[in-house]
């Protein structure tokens, strides 16, 4: 899978594999799911490279940090070409095993031992949000419907199936108040992005109109119980502040966003944490049509984790790949953002105990 993604990236970038100086590989639960640790050198071998390869693990934000470290190493002058992305295989496990594997992103003693599953943790945040700010399951159903709609033309999406609000509301409960359609699916997948320095792009006459202009990362307590508030995500706020400052942009300048919607409520928390909405205002954004494809600032035009799929350790890389295609104009949904110049990607780990934000800009 990773080789397939890397081949696609190689073709797209026209950068030969011999020029790749480092591989930054994101993966979360390979040691559990495939009983294979030390996956990075194996992945280098899969793509015919002998360069140094390192696995990054930050739960669902694994590929986000892999990309971020690639950006940093290129900026430092250390590298000119880095292949970054990730891979996750999950469908070989039963639902119960996946549930258990994913829950290891939470606090083992205080959360997992108390029966907190991954959906359960976001359900706790959703209930806290509803209690503090208002909102209801129907608002979340609109997020799910929007992301399924966006995935329809995306050839890389896991689901090509429209859903209705009623269908989402009638689906079986996973962890109340979250139902089946509030959750991202279990996905096998890989992502690969070739990042190059400006000098390398110029010297090799590469057609690379999209640049990563800002990068930020933020952290928070691992366990929900240790956070000051449960309905906001300060890790996202910190990552966004750093990335925006780095790029010299403000939230207002952002035209489109790919956010980490592992659950519908996560998209709401993300667009608030990224500064597009005040706390408590993001819940109705999809329902009001502001974040849909034709809205003023489309969110998750790729389909998001919800419908594009969430191969945990690969997701952060796929967000960069999708945003690049969207800005470049060769994504099936590029037509909705024809004049867009600034895109933001947001990748979160666990219950946003870590978050990585990137700003991408296109030369038009």
């Amino acid at each position: 899978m990773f080789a397939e993604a890397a081949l696609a990236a190689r073709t797209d970038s026209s950068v030969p594999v011999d020029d790749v100086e480092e591989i930054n590989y994101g993966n979360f639960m390979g040691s559990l799911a495939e009983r294979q640790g030390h996956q990075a050198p194996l992945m280098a071998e899969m793509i015919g490279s002998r360069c140094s390869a390192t696995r990054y693990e930050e739960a669902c934000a694994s590929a986000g940090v892999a990309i971020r470290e690639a950006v940093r190493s290129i900026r430092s002058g250390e590298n000119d070409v880095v292949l970054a992305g990730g891979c996750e295989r999950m469908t070989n496990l039963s639902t119960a095993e996946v549930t258990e594997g994913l829950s290891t992103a939470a606090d083992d003693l205080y959360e997992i031992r108390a029966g907190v599953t991954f959906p359960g943790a976001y359900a706790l945040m959703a209930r806290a949000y509803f209690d503090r700010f208002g909102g209801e399951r129907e608002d979340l159903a609109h997020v799910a419907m929007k992301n399924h709609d966006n995935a329809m033309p995306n050839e890389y999406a896991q689901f090509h199936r429209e859903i209705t609000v009623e269908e989402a509301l009638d689906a079986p409960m996973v962890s109340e108040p979250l139902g089946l359609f509030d959750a991202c699916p279990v996905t096998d997948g890989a992502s690969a992005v070739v990042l190059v320095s400006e000098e390398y792009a110029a010297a090799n006459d590469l057609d690379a109109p999209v640049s990563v202009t800002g990068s930020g990362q933020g952290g928070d307590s691992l366990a929900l119980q240790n956070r000051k508030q449960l309905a906001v995500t300060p890790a996202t706020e910190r990552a966004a502040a750093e990335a925006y400052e780095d790029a010299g942009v403000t939230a207002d300048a952002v035209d489109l966003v790919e956010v980490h919607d592992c659950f519908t409520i996560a998209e709401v928390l993300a667009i608030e944490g990224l500064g597009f909405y005040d706390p408590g205002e993001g819940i109705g954004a999809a329902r009001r049509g502001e974040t849909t494809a034709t809205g003023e600032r489309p969110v998750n035009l790729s389909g998001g984790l919800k419908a594009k799929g969430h191969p945990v350790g690969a997701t952060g890389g796929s967000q960069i790949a999708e945003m690049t295609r969207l800005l470049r104009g060769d994504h099936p949904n590029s037509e909705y953002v024809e004049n867009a110049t600034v895109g933001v990607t947001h990748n979160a780990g666990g219950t946003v105990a870590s978050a990585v934000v990137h700003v991408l800009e296109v030369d038009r």
Partner: protein
Amino acid sequence: MTDAGYDEWLDAVGENEGYYLECPEGHGALPPRRVCPECAAADLDRAALPESGTVETFTVCHVAGPSFADEEPYVTAIAEFGPVRLTGVVRGTDPEDVTVDTPVEADKGTNETTGEGLLVLRVR
């Protein structure tokens, strides 16, 4: 397997001698912590856990991991006990009767699936 700090703490909760770790600034934390997560103070003392807490958020879980297979559906809640919060399984009421602000007390129970100790939030 023993979990340093946690097992001892859970036993204490079960014996009505629950505690948390308090720094000179009054920040609360739960073991094992060597320094205050809030202000990095290194002198932490034990303080008595308040007897009663209130549910701040909860979820009725219908799809459990293998270690909770025999419990579905069960309610997990985060409850506030003064300067700390505890995450536990709510017992002593029907799942549909739990609400935000339900008063609870902390106790040690048993996970029926694994036989391990479990933090229980018992409805008062």
